[in-house]
């Protein structure tokens, strides 16, 4: 567990609850940057530092999903919505099934021979089992815990995603605008624009992870899955990526797994707390951290276990 001491402020505080799921057009703009540092020691004293979502559109629907590895249940009957315009954080102690649930959202669990899924997951009201996996995985892309750029240049990492499967026919020149825009969306372009042929594995860890985010964004997904994307990074890179995630939420539905409760509190609009495969509580971030409905949630967020 990371300590709950105050991280650097990211954006202007807005103590308001995220609105419940309802479809709203773009409304109030986000506020400018402020600076109030949160008090130490707990969430009640700290204030959320992310503006309320301007709108939220339900994109994915997890419906009574259970996942078994052989006889072992890793996820038990979880139901929750995933909305564009919001960031959803999955929290819970190690081994509670966060990664398993996340990977099931783009059918990566199917790569594990022993994994069995029941229940249904829908993307825009279509069961994902009916969507061809490679198409689904371009609509629902994923960023992993360990930064894992491919061993090629920065440019080629993005170009690989843009090109048809294993083809190399599309000319670099034709791809350049889309490569640049993906890097821009991931906030990496300014740092790498002078040398796009730099080997990606020679970037810093934080840059590598943003390159992975750029790669995931290059497919123009509707949902972005992040599995502990900052766990291998220093606080500064973490802050940059958190900022980026919040910026992305209007364009893609973001689901992030994190062990850092402060991080969940900082950037998430809704939080799902899982424990031993069960979804214990799904609530808005402010409520889940400040006034949890469940006793186990209260114990977890106050650092009693996990």
């Amino acid at each position, binding site marked *: 567990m990371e300590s709950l001491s105050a991280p650097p402020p990211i954006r202007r505080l807005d103590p308001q609850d995220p609105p419940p799921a309802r479809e709203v057009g773009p409304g109030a703009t986000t506020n400018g940057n402020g600076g109030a540092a949160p008090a130490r020691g707990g969430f009640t004293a700290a204030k959320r530092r992310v503006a309320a979502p301007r709108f939220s559109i339900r994109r994915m629907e997890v419906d009574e999903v259970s996942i078994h590895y052989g006889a072992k249940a890793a996820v038990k009957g979880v139901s929750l919505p995933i909305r564009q315009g919001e960031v959803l954080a999955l929290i819970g102690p190690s081994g509670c099934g966060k990664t398993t649930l996340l990977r099931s959202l*783009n059918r*990566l669990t199917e*790569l594990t021979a022993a994994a069995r899924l029941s229940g249904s997951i829908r993307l825009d009201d279509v069961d994902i089992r009916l969507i061809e*996996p*490679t*198409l*689904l*995985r*371009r609509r629902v*892309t*994923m960023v*992993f*815990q*360990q*930064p*894992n750029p*491919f*061993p*090629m240049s920065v440019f080629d990492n993005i170009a*690989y*995603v843009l090109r048809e*499967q*294993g083809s*190399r026919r599309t000319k670099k020149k034709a791809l350049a605008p889309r490569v640049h825009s993906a890097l821009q969306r991931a906030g990496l372009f300014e740092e790498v624009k002078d040398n796009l042929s730099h*080997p*990606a*594995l*020679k970037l810093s860890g934080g840059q590598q992870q943003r390159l*992975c985010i750029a*790669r*995931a964004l*290059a*497919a123009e997904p509707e949902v972005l899955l992040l599995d502990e994307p900052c766990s*291998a990074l220093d606080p500064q890179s973490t802050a940059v990526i958190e900022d980026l995630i919040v910026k992305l939420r209007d364009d893609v539905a973001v689901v992030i797994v994190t062990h850092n409760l402060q991080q969940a509190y900082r950037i998430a609009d809704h939080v799902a707390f899982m424990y031993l495969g069960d979804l214990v509580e799904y609530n808005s971030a402010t409520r889940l951290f400040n006034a949890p409905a469940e006793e186990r949630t209260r114990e977890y967020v106050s650092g009693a276990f996990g």
Partner: protein
Amino acid sequence: MEPSVATPPPGRPPAAPPRGKAPTGAVEGSATWSVLDRLGLAFCWALGLLFCAIAVAIVVYLFLQGVKFLKLDQLTTPAATGFSETQTGGFSDALVGTLIVATMGIALALPTGIAIAVWLVEYGRPAALARVTELTIEAIAGIPSIVLALFGTVIFSSTALGFLSRSNEGVVFGRSFFAAAAMLSLVALPLVVASTRQGLESIPRHVREASYAVGKTKAATVRRILLPTARPQVATGMILGLGRIIGDTAIILVLLGATQNFAPVEGAVFPFDYLRGAGTTLTNFVYEASPTGNLNQPQKAYAAAFVLLLMVLGLNAAADLVHRRARKAGTWSH
């Protein structure tokens, strides 16, 4: 064994004088170790030095002999029958023969080996078939090449494969560059498979998944991510395999006809006339020219062995280059 227990390992500089404020050179010394550990260390050093010495001795000796006896015209004149050193020519046919079997052998072994390794590591289903494949490769690796050669004579003397060698009134000779290269590729195959597998297996799983997670198929991932990443290990396997091919003698003796010159098949189109015919390689020439061989010209044997050695050293340097390039590209933390 010469280095006494107290001798510090050679090559380690004496404790450097303190630079600036921070004292340097504070490394763990073996002085605090138990006697047994120190003996062990001394033994390791002694063995290491011994093997270095043996390797250096071989290379230096061959180098000296080679430089002394190698004449450039030996590389361009074929062997001939004659009564004196000057009349018997050089070993150009053997040199070209080595290049031919190496090229043909690796051209068969490399794609097959890579394909087998990719299948084993990335697909490997059904598991029973994968296990059988694995065992087969291990078995091939364990078969002495003379046995492979014998087996080759059976296969390539069959009438169905007569087009791969010379045949005379329905009797298939069964010895040719095709036959030798095919069996030599089996010698190289296990090395290519093992090395490529190792390269693929060292790629973390999440790297593959990162490719699948942007909608790439397994085939695209293998082609564009996994094989390029494993390139240094593939190169290592290829070079080890080449080394075994150009170093093999048994298969050449049995399956290449062990002539002193090319013996092309008359009437066939180039290059098939040569490839279907018998021939020789450097190893075969060294054998024949050694004091036990028919030619008994030890000086030319040294010259040919020297050329062989240069080829192997060249291959190693190439492998080194590939590895160094790959290191420059960086790697993942696991």
